[in-house]
């Protein structure tokens, strides 16, 4: 079922690829957008706090003044604060769904997944608390409903709801506490977000600039077209019968009426528990493919390229086990995702070496260098006509589907596993008309950095560089997600035509 959902998701992402290009596609940057909205809400929140009166009697009036007397800035800031917070819920929800559908919670990624779950509670607590502070009719509804909801828990001996019986029972002290909670909870959220990305090297926490400007402009437009306004001052002598809810943050409140407080607690705790155990509920296939990288000290010269390239900080450098003054890579198996990007970065991972057993400094047990050369040669040998050779990625467009007599393919767990010297190795063959290297779009690489590092290696911006006697024009790098077969086939046609013309 997940694969069917993934196919649907890729179709939608494909439409966005067309509109935005892959590098600006918001679907590939949902987490980064979440961070961005957090900062927009923070900056606008700091501005609002300057003019906000934290006393119960002055809160509503101060928000009204901010909204109407300085609408050009205060009003827009208030709207930005609200809409950025709402946008954060949308992107975080989509981020969660997307990572689930694409299986990006398995293996060592359990940590990022699990650490993200409590952030949902903090996000909603921060948003709900913010609505409370306006002390309008919506705030009144939230205050009464939330206190009744919390009162259901046995730990609250004296009823919180008694604080909202009448206007006289609401105290400034309680209100000040709420203000500080609205500052403290987002701070905890930020710390949680930091922990959430902690295990990822170079985690993307800022969206691509063009996407960032576009999103900010869209939020400003929304703030001007539909400014956030209050719903009349709170009045506890009457019940809020009808209320315009923020369905992004307050969607559980109608359930309190229809199900009851205990049932809603049960529902939310069940959902949270279910989310938390997802990595263990759907572990995926445990095969040798997932075996962590191994270091062969005899071939490791301590260059540190694999250490720099590992997207999950699974590699550290230590003094070499027996070569004095040299270092050696060490893999932490608990952090290794078995992407093979380290194998692609190793300077000793070259098929040209004339040794009895081809072994590189660091390699994958499931796909060692020797096997990589063997399978490349096997794919080449399967045809005796001029061919275009394609190195692909199992997570991107399935290149094996386009294999034919004159198109030979080898699919790798991640394209970052491919040492550039292999492209040279193949391109040097006389009957190879061209080499095509493809994988996930860099903005959405399954293993985060495989495509980006490969692109840089082939451009000569990252070690190991592509050096080829066959001419760099013979080697092309083209990114194609699972749904972008058309683009790949179009380029293949061009390469074939070029070959025929040359012939």
């Amino acid at each position, binding site marked *: 079922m997940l694969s069917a959902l993934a196919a649907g998701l890729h179709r939608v992402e494909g439409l966005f690829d067309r509109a935005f290009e892959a590098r600006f596609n918001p679907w590939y940057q949902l987490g980064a957008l979440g961070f961005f909205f957090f900062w927009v809400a923070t900056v606008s929140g700091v501005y609002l706090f300057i003019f906000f009166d934290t006393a119960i009697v002055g809160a509503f009036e101060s928000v009204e003044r901010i909204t109407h007397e300085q609408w050009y800035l205060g009003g827009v800031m208030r709207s930005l604060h609200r809409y950025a917070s709402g946008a954060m819920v949308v992107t975080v929800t989509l981020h969660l769904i997307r990572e689930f559908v694409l299986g990006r919670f398995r293996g060592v990624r359990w940590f990022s997944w699990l650490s993200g779950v409590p952030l949902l509670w903090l996000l909603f607590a921060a948003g709900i608390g913010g609505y409370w502070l306006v002390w309008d009719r919506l705030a009144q509804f939230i205050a009464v409903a939330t206190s009744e909801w919390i009162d259901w828990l046995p730990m609250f001996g004296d009823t919180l709801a008694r604080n909202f019986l009448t206007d006289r029972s609401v105290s400034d002290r309680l209100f000040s506490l709420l203000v500080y909670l609205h500052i403290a909870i987002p701070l905890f959220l930020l710390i949680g977000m930091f922990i959430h990305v902690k295990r990822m090297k170079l985690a993307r926490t800022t969206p691509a600039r063009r996407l960032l400007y576009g999103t900010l402009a*869209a939020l400003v437009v929304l703030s001007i077209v539909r400014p956030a306004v209050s719903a009349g001052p709170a009045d506890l002598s009457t019940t809020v019968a009808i209320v315009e*809810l923020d369905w992004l943050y307050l969607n559980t409140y109608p359930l309190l009426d229809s199900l009851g407080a205990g049932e809603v607690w049960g529902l939310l705790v069940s959902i949270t528990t279910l989310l938390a155990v997802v990595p263990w509920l759907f572990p995926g296939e445990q095969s040798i493919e997932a075996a962590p990288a191994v270091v062969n000290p005899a071939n490791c010269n301590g260059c540190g390229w694999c250490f720099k390239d590992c997207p999950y900080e699974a590699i550290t450098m230590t003094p070499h086990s027996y070569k004095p003054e040299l270092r050696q890579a060490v893999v932490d198996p608990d952090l290794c995702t078995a992407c093979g990007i380290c194998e692609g970065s190793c300077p000793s991972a070259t098929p040209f070496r004339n040794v009895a057993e081809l072994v590189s400094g660091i390699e994958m047990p499931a796909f060692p260098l020797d096997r990589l050369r063997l399978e490349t040669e096997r794919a080449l040998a399967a045809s005796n006509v001029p061919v275009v050779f394609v190195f692909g990625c199992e997570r991107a467009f399935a290149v094996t589907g386009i294999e034919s007599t004159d198109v030979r393919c080898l699919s790798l767990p991640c394209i970052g596993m491919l040492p550039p010297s292999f492209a040279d190795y193949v391109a040097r063959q006389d009957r190879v008309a061209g080499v095509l290297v493809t994988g996930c779009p860099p903005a959405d690489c399954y293993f985060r950095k495989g495509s980006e590092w490969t692109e840089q290696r082939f451009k000569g911006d990252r070690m190991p560089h592509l050096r080829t006697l066959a001419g760099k024009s013979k080697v092309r790098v083209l990114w194609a997600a699972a749904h972008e077969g058309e683009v790949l086939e179009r380029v293949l046609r061009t390469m074939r035509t070029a070959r025929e013309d040359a012939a």
Partner: protein
Amino acid sequence: MKTVVFRSLGQLVAFAMFIGLVGALAPGPAYRHLDAGLATIKLSLRHAGAPIAPCRERTAEELAQLAPNMRQSTVCPRERSPLVLELALDDRVVFDATLLPRGIHRDGRASVYQRLSVPAGDIDVKVRLKDDARIEGYQYQRTQRVKLAPADVLVIDFDAERGDFVFDGGSLPPRTMGHPAGGAE
């Protein structure tokens, strides 16, 4: 050129959809929390009941077993009486509960918060409280006719100092009945 126009349009549509979604949901469609024609009664009190049993004098043997600095002749139980609270609207009992004192030793206050939705209009409210397990019947009672408009909130609390129920909200005609002390009905 065609691609640029297509892409720009596509991006505009995507951004419009995004802010459209956020703008439509925050705030979104109105939610009816209380049906038309209904009012709310909130019955809420926090009160410590009387001690569960009277104080008594220790016997000479009991006193002898205590350390010299602990030899107080009178000993009073910490435990409080549970509260028995009843609310009737138009002679129909809508709430009737025994509220246990808080704390491991049951020596704290008992509390309750109950929100009821009732048809708006004139209602005869009768509320009774028993806070002493040693005495039969209810010690406190108040009967009041109230007029509640739709969405009005009537708060019924208990003032322990005055020993009387407090009605707040709605239209309250002069108090009709009530006895803060002493006997049962």
